[in-house]
């Protein structure tokens, strides 16, 4: 069986080599110190870029929203089964109805009066 630990310890390079020479230490220290710069300055363009991106996105969304046609059909609740959704029964263009039936069988009719105002 190979004794890994013993093999490694018998082969340890640091057992036969000297550690770092003083000249090497000084050279490495000098190179590292020469790369020291001051603290990073505030990257002011970055927040501005973020703000501009958000503004452009908002403007584009508003412009696109105005170009798109309004959604058709009324909202339907999750707990009801619409039997007739967005079915304008009334012949008058200013009055629209929405009829649906609940699971219990109750029929509900909503009449929308465009002339109604609070």
């Amino acid at each position, binding site marked *: 069986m*190979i004794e890994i630990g013993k093999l*490694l310890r018998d*082969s340890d*390079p*640091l057992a036969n*080599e000297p550690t770092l020479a003083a000249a090497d230490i000084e050279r*490495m220290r000098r190179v590292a*110190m020469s790369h020291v710069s001051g*603290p990073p300055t505030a990257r002011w363009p970055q927040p501005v870029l973020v703000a501009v991106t958000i503004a452009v996105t908002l403007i584009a969304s508003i412009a696109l929203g105005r170009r798109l046609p309004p959604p058709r059909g009324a909202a339907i609740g999750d707990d009801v089964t619409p039997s007739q959704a967005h079915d304008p029964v009334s012949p008058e263009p200013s009055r629209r109805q929405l009829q649906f039936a609940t699971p219990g069988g109750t029929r509900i009719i909503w009449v929308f009066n465009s002339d109604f105002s609070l």
Partner: protein
Amino acid sequence: MPTADVYRGVTADAIALAVASEAGVQAGEGRLASLFDAHHLRVYKLARRMSGSADAARDLVQETFLRATGAIESVPVGARAEEAWLVRVLLNICRDNWRRQARQARLSVFARPASSFVAGDHETAFIARTTVWRALQMLHPRRRAAIVLYELEGAQIPDIARLLGVSAVTVRWHLSRGRRELAKLIRDS
């Protein structure tokens, strides 16, 4: 038309900024100098045992402290925390180098004829040492570091876990897998 007061204000601000920047540079230099003086030998010992030669180890040490230079504000305060931070940077560099090397280049080392481990024979002893260390180079740097820290530096598992930034269970797993991989590589060579 800007007044003299405006010019004075701008100049004062520029001077203050330059002074603050210079102070920051001096603080960074002081921090790096103390970091280097405290840990360069420790980093070198680990780098030497992680790499194949003294030259490679010196390059690793240099690169480690250059990275510290670029991120001096990220270095935590305290000797143990600094040591752990530097060890992890060293391992990241080793890992980058290890990935860059082609698998074929590493495997080609073991295409040579097998040598026997005959005690007392200087040449075969040299080959044996080379074989062991080349097998060690085949391991993933983190696993290699766990083996080196445990077998050669005599570090305890909790200390290894702290240095590597992993749990003690992970360290034991790396040690177990690392020993098996090394044994297989040495046997196959």
